């Protein structure tokens, strides 16, 4: 490997530059993955989500996990510097902070905050094993990033798109189409805002303190990176102890007094290579480096804040959307409200509530990919932020399998189009009190007309009378719970037919 001992200037080092370019590619790729509501990019960029550490672990994707371990064993924590979008986001924030006058060298060595670090890791592992998905999702870096992008940035992206769509409409072009921006879950939105504020403040002030104190993936990779083949190494013979490297180290892991680096926290960003005026720092193989003991000091980390526990109070999920203008010539249409479901509906491919809860990192990729307004993050404490379905805005259309295509963790396993129509994710339940033929005496049958599997038949409400009103009869053996009936039912605000989820999905 190259040795950059001779560098004299603190210009961007080629290795640092390479790292930055790769990091930006991953960062924008994954961000676009969350922003793109058309689904066109997933074919190209979907793999970027699938090589994220935690999703790969949850998906039992051994190949990827081994690859990431191997990558770390060779290069150190480049995963954190390049592949992890939350890490790159912090770098960007930190970079903005550094570009303030006199703030470029604002860091300094701070010892590892061991108890916090391992405390979070233990908590995380317990949460995963115990199946407390929401807690794990709060700590997982990829989930945090997904939540932040899909809740805070996707609306901006969609509004921008809608502006283009408006212009396109005027030009009679179909290049852009409008998409609805709505608040899918208030608790998730609040969590996203809090995570973003917290991470922003930490990154603005302390660079990578989140990664090295809170992030469980960072801690796990930190175990491995201690033994990596290539490392940042300090030649104490050349070092003048100017501390420029430590002052520029966003991981605060260079202890220049002892000429030691805490490799469990170094994310191999390569910035110090360029910062060193004396060519004392190299990124090199073990044998080329000076022998140095690898013992580490333990002292409090400089990151001052503990991770804010997010209020668990689950607020009722509300939708925030502009009141539609109603033309005088058009009857007003009342908004539908979410029916009380005994069992939540989770998308086909999730297999069961339990499977989803155990594998989902609540990254929101499926929620942002759902083109029918069906998926939204749950507001229930035990499944907080994990996806669930409801049919006020649309229904789970037979041709769409997008959530199963994008899920990186296997929480929603990949299903085909034909398969989808044979998975019962729930069953329709008729609510007599709301059914229009009985309440308003009109002919209807819209549920039966639109059932994609023909599970609804209209039958006489009173068999003795020939022209009795017709009411729907659901064949629960055929019903797949797609919600077409619920969505297209004219009864408002509560439909006269709604779907109860199945705890365990069935195949017909």
């Amino acid at each position, binding site marked *: 490997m190259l040795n950059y001992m001779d560098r004299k200037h603190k210009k961007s080092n080629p290795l640092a530059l390479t790292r930055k370019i790769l990091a930006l590619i991953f960062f924008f790729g994954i961000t676009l993955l969350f922003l793109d509501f058309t689904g066109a990019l997933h074919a190209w960029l979907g793999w970027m989500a699938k090589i994220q550490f935690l999703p790969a672990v949850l998906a039992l994707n051994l190949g990827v996990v081994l690859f990431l371990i191997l990558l770390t064993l060779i290069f150190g924590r480049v995963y954190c510097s390049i592949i992890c979008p939350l890490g790159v986001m912090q770098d960007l924030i930190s970079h903005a902070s550094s570009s303030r006058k006199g703030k470029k060298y604002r860091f300094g060595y701070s010892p590892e905050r061991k108890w916090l670090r391992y405390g979070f890791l233990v908590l995380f592992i317990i949460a995963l094993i115990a199946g407390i998905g929401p807690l794990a999702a709060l700590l997982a870096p990829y989930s945090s990033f997904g939540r932040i992008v899909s809740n805070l940035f996707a609306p901006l992206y969609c509004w921008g798109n809608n502006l283009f769509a408006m212009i396109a409409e005027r030009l009679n072009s179909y290049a852009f189409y409008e998409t609805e921006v709505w608040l899918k879950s208030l608790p998730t939105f609040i969590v996203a805002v809090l995570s973003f504020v917290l991470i922003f403040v930490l990154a603005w002030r302390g660079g990578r303190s989140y990664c090295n104190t809170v992030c469980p993936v960072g801690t796990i990779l930190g175990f491995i990176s201690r033994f990596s083949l290539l490392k940042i190494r300090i030649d104490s013979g050349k070092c003048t102890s100017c501390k420029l490297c430590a002052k520029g180290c966003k991981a605060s892991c260079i202890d220049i007094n002892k000429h030691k680096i805490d490799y469990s926290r170094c994310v191999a960003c390569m910035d110090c290579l360029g910062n060193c005026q004396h060519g004392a720092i190299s990124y090199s193989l073990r044998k080329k480096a000076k022998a140095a003991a690898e013992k580490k000091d333990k002292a409090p980390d400089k990151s001052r804040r503990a991770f804010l526990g997010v209020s668990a109070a689950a607020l009722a999920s509300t939708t925030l959307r502009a009141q539609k203008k109603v033309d005088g010539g058009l009857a007003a*249409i009342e908004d539908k409200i979410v029916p009380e479901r005994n069992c939540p509906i989770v998308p086909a491919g999730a297999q069961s509530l339990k499977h989803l809860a155990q594998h989902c990192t609540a990254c929101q990729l499926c929620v942002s990919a759902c083109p029918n307004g069906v998926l939204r993050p749950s507001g229930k404490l035990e499944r907080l932020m994990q996806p669930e379905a409801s049919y006020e805005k649309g229904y789970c259309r037979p041709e769409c399998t997008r959530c199963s295509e994008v899920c990186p963790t296997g929480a929603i396993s990949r299903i085909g189009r034909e398969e989808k129509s044979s998975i019962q994710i729930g069953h329709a339940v008729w609510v007599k009190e709301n059914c229009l033929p009985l309440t308003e005496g009109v002919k209807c049958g819209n549920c039966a007309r639109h059932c994609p599997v023909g599970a609804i038949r209209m039958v006489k409400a009173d068999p003795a009378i020939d022209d009795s009103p017709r009411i729907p009869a659901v064949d629960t053996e055929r019903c797949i719970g797609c919600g077409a009936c619920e969505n297209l039912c004219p009864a408002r605000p509560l439909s006269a037919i709604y779907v109860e989820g199945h705890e365990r999905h069935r195949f017909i």
Partner: protein
Amino acid sequence: MEKKNIDRRQFLKCLGAGALAGTAVLGCKSESGTRTANATEGKMTYRTNPSTGDKVSLLGYGCMRWPLMASPEGNGEIIDQEGVNSLVDYALAHGVNYFDTAPPYCRGLSEKATGIALKRHPRDSYFIATKMSNQSFLGKGFSPKQMYDASVEMYRNSFVNLQTDYIDYYLLHIIGIGEGLPSLMERFVDSGLIDFLLEERRLGHIRNLGFSYHGDVKAFDYLLSRHDEIHWDFVQIQMNYVDWKHASGINHNAEYLYKELADRDIPVVVMEPLLGGRLAGLAEHLNLRLKEQRPEDSIAAWAFRFAGSFPKVLTVLSGMTYLEHLQDNLRTFSPLEPCSEEEFALLEDTALMMLQYPSVPCTACQYCMPCPYGIDIPGIFAHYNKCLNEGQITASSQDENYRKARRAFLIGYNRSIPGLRQANHCIACGQCVPHCPQNIKIPQQLQRIDHYVEQLKLSSGQ
């Protein structure tokens, strides 16, 4: 939608010509400086009503589609009165003198708005037409007396709304609708309203008495059979180059209707000369054929010239929402150049070719609205017809432009119709059906379109 295209084109034309002549406001007038064929400064063509000697402009103003604006209270839309005033002023200034309204038009606001606009001009400078729209009382179990009282109240109300003490042209509205002849009898004969109206005509409150006809031809024949006794001063029929020989549904061919009226020397007022705007823009290849013949004429002008070419036609009604419509029509009618034999043949051929497309014969009259379940019925039909005209309806996913057409149809559908007002929310209750003067089987047509949309969606990603 098609109309919008025309608007834009006309508007740009105006703008361009206006800029050329260096005038900013009402630049179209200056267009005459650059053109000779269709100058608006030409003289409006007038026809004489044989019974009263009225000189009626061949272009009549239909007051069913006045411009709307958001109401200040934020609850829906109201008529843009200033817009109406300026349209009426412009029309009168350019020779239009026949204004046709009715109590239910523009959600019941048309008569009043028309009255306000016309009141600002001398009463003898225009003719007012309005109607007895008592079809809305059908099926309510009214006794003949109740039908009579409610209808007379409606009649008196029109005088108040229009701020006048006489009505130039009064019509029995939409004869032939509902159950046809029995409905006609219930509305006007059994209730004794015909006698009331004849008396009003004798007293001079009504200067001309006539009827407008859609649907069941028995009702039309019945009223004409009583012509010798009643003496109809005029009759209003739906007439255009499609309906001439190829009327849809239970509507009767205009060729027959016109001939029956002409034989009796009854002046004909033409409604739906554009088939609700559908003849303002045809399928691309049909448009091109007409453009090749008369490159400076709009497509709509052909339909107006068709209707105006018949000598017994007193006036051709056009519901002009925009100034550009009015200006284009003024060019067509000032003066009207009748169609030649070759042109009639071309239009007949155009009609025949249009029949190959399964478009929905909706004229956007809004009689079916509001749908109690919020469906935008005319909007859905307009989008479907527009896509049909633009060749965006494809039967097979094997067609080469299938993907493009699918995208255009689905995106355009969501743009023009909010999701909750789309065809899949139609529950087929059928409440709209009796209101449709074109006798469109609305639920079936909506289901057909919904089925098509479903096919498009299901084929996505294939």
